[in-house]
């Protein structure tokens, strides 16, 4: 067994198996002192018939697609293009700047957001709005929870794609751009006809990778809105799974039930990964850029 196989087995397949077994039980803090039972697929039945199941599913899809389109891919691509068309050093600096939120601890980062969206005179955004005569704005987070959930996630998420896209753009042979300019292409036409087609694989890679990481991420939502305001307004799948299984809200940990929620994500992730591995041929992605191949 190679070290890689061992690692994947120990840290992925074994936990996944335990999770699956857990999801077939009625393990919970309420009956922890009693013997637990295998209850078959009852947890899954309960999950799919949950009153808020459609809401959570819808929230998850909304959260993943909007963050992905506008930030993790959209803004990332825009930033990569902008920074590669300005001065090299300025581009580098700008990219570093954009990485700051990623290396900021989540709690600090979210506290900053919460600080920004509070009511005047505490909220920073409302203070600015106040200068334009828009004082007495309500608590922005309660007014537009989705906007800030997506902003907070997107600002961090965009940096990953930006780095991938920037280096992909840098590895395009300069002669191609020269040739296109000589052929008569404007900057926009060069982006459309040369740059974007050559970013096809990085684009697919970032899209798929970020879909998966958004699907399983919940910490910013937990810290920012905790699924609220109100009932399940911004609650996503991974957050539900976490709350059912591990949150001590009312001291009612339902490990078995939460595991069922979690396992669905694991299954989606494995399926998607296998497809991606096949489709993208990751070996090719990590190959050196093909320059001057005869």
């Amino acid at each position, binding site marked *: 067994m190679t070290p890689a196989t061992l690692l994947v087995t120990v840290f992925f397949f074994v936990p996944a198996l335990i999770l699956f077994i857990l999801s077939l039980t009625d393990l919970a803090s309420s009956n922890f002192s009693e013997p637990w039972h295998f209850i078959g697929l009852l947890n899954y039945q309960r999950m799919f018939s949950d009153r808020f199941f459609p809401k959570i599913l819808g929230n998850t899809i909304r959260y993943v697609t909007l963050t992905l389109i506008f930030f993790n891919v959209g803004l990332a691509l825009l930033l990569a293009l902008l920074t590669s068309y300005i001065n090299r050093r300025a581009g580098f600096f700008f990219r570093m700047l954009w990485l700051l939120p990623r290396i900021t601890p989540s709690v600090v980062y979210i506290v900053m957001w919460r600080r920004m969206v509070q009511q005047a005179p505490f909220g920073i955004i409302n203070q600015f709005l106040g200068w334009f005569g828009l004082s007495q704005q309500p608590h922005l987070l309660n007014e537009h929870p989705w906007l800030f959930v997506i902003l907070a996630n997107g600002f961090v998420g965009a940096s990953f794609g930006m780095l991938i896209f920037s280096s992909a753009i840098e590895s395009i*042979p300069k*002669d*191609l751009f*020269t*040739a*296109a*300019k*000589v*052929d*008569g*292409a*404007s900057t926009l*036409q060069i982006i459309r*006809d*040369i740059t974007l*087609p*050559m970013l*096809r694989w990085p684009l697919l890679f970032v899209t798929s990778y970020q879909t998966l990481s958004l699907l399983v991420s919940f910490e910013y939502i937990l810290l920012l809105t905790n699924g609220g305001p109100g009932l399940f307004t911004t609650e996503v799948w991974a957050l539900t799974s976490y709350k059912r299984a591990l949150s001590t809200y009312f001291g009612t940990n339902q490990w078995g039930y939460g595991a069922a929620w979690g396992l669905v994500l694991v299954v989606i992730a494995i399926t998607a990964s296998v497809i991606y591995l096949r489709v993208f041929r990751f070996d090719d992605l990590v190959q050196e850029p*093909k*320059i*001057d*191949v*005869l």
Partner: protein
Amino acid sequence: MKVELTNLTKRWGDVVGAEGIDLSTKDGEFVAFLGPSGCGKTTTLLMIAGIYKPTVGEILFDDRVVNTVPPKDRNIGMVFQSYALYPHMTVFQNIGYPLKLQKVPKDELQKHVQRVADMMGIGHLMDRKPAQLSGGQQQRVALGRALIKEPQLLLFDEPLSNLDARLRLSMRSEIKRLQMDLGITSIYVTHDQIEAMTMADRVAVMKDGHLQAFAPPDELYDHPKTLFIAGFVGNPPMNFIEVEVKQENGSYQVLGPGIHLDLPADRGEKVARSSKVIMGIRPEDISLADTGVKGEVYLIEPLGRDDLLDVRIGETAVRVLADPALGVRMRDTVTLHFNTDTAQLFDPDTEQSLLW
């Protein structure tokens, strides 16, 4: 179209790309930029293409200053060493790209691309991607793409350097032929002096960002203005020997360690004052003879038609072209005749020719 460069200069901070290039081409002329790697050929070419902005100086197309004209409005075609084909486009799309940008109607574009592709002999490869083509085919596609918009100026940046030797030879004559037929003014960058000499009407020799000479190939060969040009042009390269020139009773003598030669008066009189000179003499102007300078054969390189001999005269090494039929062998002692009628003489300090 005529191209004129006046005091053309490109610097990046302290780095000099090209410095004070003055040069003007005739309409329809084939000009080669020749020089070793890093001498500023590409830099100059990219300024002409409009990719680099000159730091100082002007570029004129038919007496019109084009310094600020963007590349797309210069009506030029360009061919690269890397071919620079768009890897995600087919041959058809690659060649047709300049026309597509000009919004040429579909059927007209189709006809045009087919005609150019047929001319380049790649009409049957239209649906292939560049990766599915050989180097020679890729270079033809690149040529087709450069030609399709009927440019007024063709720029080549070492287009044949990535091809194997035999293909290079045939593409060389093909490009030359094409250029003559179409009569498009062309600037051809190369570090290969044979390419420059065989293809160009005039050759611009560059060194360290400076233009050393701009002259027809035979002029460069027969009347090299600097030591650098003399050494760079011609294959195998010219021999350089440090000698003294002396005048005795109206006749001129070349003296060196183990060397004693007569020098024609028309050459000798130009060096009357500076007695220490560098004499340049081409391997084909030295021959094996019965009397003359004695030396030992150090190495023999068979070139096929000739043998290239490395002969040591004391400390001095000279290259000599000899007939293989003579059966010279290593360590033989040979007698060399120097044809000083074509000898070049250079000032050792300025490295300028004393003759031209």
